[in-house]
């Protein structure tokens, strides 16, 4: 069976299409990443961990003087708060500072006097020189002073080196969001969420849709009337309206709890599946209408096979190419709709996803911070583009007469 499929004309045509094979490779890469993530490649805690001061830019953008000062001040302020608290409690500042570590960027243990010396110096520079000017950008002569501030921050919180340094670079090379969370970790983690939603909804919708579609066309009569009535009813409600109404039903239940991110995806699955099955159902109903008049179905009936047997063994397998094409179309639809639903606050809850990232990035764009929206859009763009090319090639190879 598999061998025959691989030698079929459609598959050969598909494999000659180099662009489509490249797209398939990209999809495979994403899929493997999603599997690794699913088995704990990146834990959910890692997506919520603070790894840097807020809105740190990515690797090729040099921050300006104001931003550099702000990042240094983040560490200096942490040390300042810790040393005050420590002296009132009679502890060593390092014990308090330890909890302020940003992922691999951990504080070192200095002598208490050393903290005082460094902090005194830092605040003197700040008060006597840096705070006096409105905009550091206009005073390049102050750069050495900002550098000194960075050195002080570096002495208290040294940047990690070696293996840890590499890991830390991976976490920060795309910058950090408003809560100091790693953009790269969140964007990659979102691949898992996208595949979870995409795979579950498209597999379930295609299965339901093609079974019902084939049954409607094959049995005809009241079965056909009922199924056509159900899908014309569902498709007469605008898509976003139906989704929102379905999600209202789940509001305030166990499925609406950010603490349980896996359960909170259930409304999204239900909402998507209840509209997505209509597409494959229509297409496969039409195809089955054609197939059921063909000689081999008549022959099977003449031999005396049961109707269910013919439906499952002879008709549905011959619509497999349409199921594939629809699967791929729905996958794209699911990923894109997830982004929109999450933006409206109706979709993913309690974990990172491309939709959540784009929503968070909405206001950052106005302050010229493009890293978060850029990372989410890029990863999503590559995946959706690969799926678009893949779908086109599938259609060319297996369903060449189709228009759009």
């Amino acid at each position: 069976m598999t061998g025959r499929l691989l030698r079929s004309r459609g598959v050969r045509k598909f494999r000659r299409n180099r662009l489509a094979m490249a797209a398939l490779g990209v999809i495979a890469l994403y899929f493997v990443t999603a599997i690794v993530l699913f088995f704990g490649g990146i834990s959910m805690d890692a997506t919520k961990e603070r790894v840097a001061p807020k809105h740190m830019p990515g690797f090729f953008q040099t921050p300006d003087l104001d931003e550099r000062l702000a990042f240094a001040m983040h560490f200096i302020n942490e040390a300042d708060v810790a040393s005050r608290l420590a002296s009132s409690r009679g502890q060593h500042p390092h014990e308090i500072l330890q909890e302020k570590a940003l992922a691999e960027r951990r504080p070192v243990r200095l002598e208490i006097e050393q903290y005082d010396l460094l902090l005194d110096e830092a605040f003197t520079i700040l008060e006597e020189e840096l705070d006096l000017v409105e905009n550091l950008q206009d005073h390049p002569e102050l750069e050495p002073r900002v550098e000194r501030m960075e050195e002080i921050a570096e002495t208290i919180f040294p940047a990690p080196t070696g293996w840890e340094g590499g890991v830390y670079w991976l976490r920060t090379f795309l910058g950090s969001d408003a809560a100091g969370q790693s953009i790269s970790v969140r964007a990659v983690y979102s691949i898992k969420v996208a595949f979870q939603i995409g795979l579950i909804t498209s597999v379930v919708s295609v299965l339901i849709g093609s079974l019902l579609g084939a049954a409607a066309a094959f049995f005809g009569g009241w079965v056909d009337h009922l199924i056509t009535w159900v899908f014309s009813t569902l498709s007469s409600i605008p898509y976003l309206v139906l989704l929102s109404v379905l999600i209202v039903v789940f509001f305030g239940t166990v499925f609406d709890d950010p603490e349980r991110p896996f359960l909170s995806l259930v409304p999204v699955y239900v909402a998507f599946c209840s509209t997505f099955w209509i597409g494959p159902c229509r297409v496969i109903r039409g195809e089955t209408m054609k197939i059921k008049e063909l000689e081999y179905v008549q022959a099977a009936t003449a031999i005396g096979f049961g109707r269910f047997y013919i439906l499952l063994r002879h008709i549905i397998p011959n619509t497999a190419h349409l199921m594939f094409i629809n699967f791929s179309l729905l996958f794209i639809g699911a990923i894109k709709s997830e982004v929109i639903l999450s933006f409206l606050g109706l979709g993913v809850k309690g974990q990172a996803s491309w939709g959540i990232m784009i929503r968070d990035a909405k206001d950052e764009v106005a302050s010229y911070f493009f890293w978060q929206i850029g990372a989410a859009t890029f990863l999503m763009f590559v995946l959706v583009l690969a799926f678009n090319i893949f779908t086109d090639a599938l259609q060319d190879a297996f369903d060449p007469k189709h228009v759009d």
Partner: protein
Amino acid sequence: MWSFILRRLLYNIPVYLGILLLVMGLLRVRNPVYAYLGKNADEKQIAQLEESFGLNDPFIVQYGRFIWRGLRLDFGESWKYQGTTVREKLLASIPPSLSITVPALILTSLISITVGLFSSYYRGRWIDRLLVIAAVLGMSISFLVYIIFGQFVGAFLPKQAGWFLQPFEISGYKPWYSIDTFDLLGLTIPYPTGFSPMTWVSFCMLPVLISVIVSMGYDTRFYRAVMVEESNRDYIVTARAKGATKRKIMFVHMLKNAMIPIITRIMTTLPFLITGSILLEIFFGIPGMGRTLITAITDMDYPMIQGFTAVIAFLYILSIILTDVLYALVDPRVRLS
């Protein structure tokens, strides 16, 4: 023909009743009043709202009453905005939606049909390939990203840089028309009294442009596929054989025959004219149908949700029937049975 129209209408009545059943049923899975008032509501308030929404009656009575009142466009009063009827909200939110979706549809269709025709005329050449690639690339970016960057480039950058031209606003929507009403058989009918095109440009032009750019990818691809399909037909060969120029074949023979799928495509997008683009309305603060409905959903304002869904679904079905009828008119091959 008339019997065909009548049959289509009759066929869609059970569909519409099904939609109402589904929506009303879904909205009553949990008690609407508790959902709206939250956990700490007092007994009296709950009883009062339940009474006004008719929740004490059996479902079938509520269903029947909703249909009967719906025939007169009476969907009750909004919970959130006391003293405002759903009908007033409905009538007020249609014009803002239309002032974006209608220009957007016209522009998108004109541009993408032209580009599709152009692309299929140069089929296989570099310009065609470039257009096809651009369409696929454009389709792979999220609508949200288009809006965010559209606002950034169209409104934020010009303001920041202090450009000479700062034509677009992204908040503080003002209507670009003034409206008066008159009474007809008990219905209040609005009619426009004056227009100000400059207000339209500042509040509606940018969303229209974004919407055109987003739909271009999908539409261009579709129209190109239609034209390519059409150019493989026998009558094109005949026209070539009798010596018609390529240009004449494109614009006279092909475009005429391609009208059927084109009309269908445009007709199927008609219901979205009324729903409006929910996302664009939210981002630009435009008080249209989509935004009002989403706000009603987040407020759990049940009479509003019910009324809006009923009207939107009705217009949706109406446009589907219209498509079928138009289809039968344009293409005599469509069987009327």
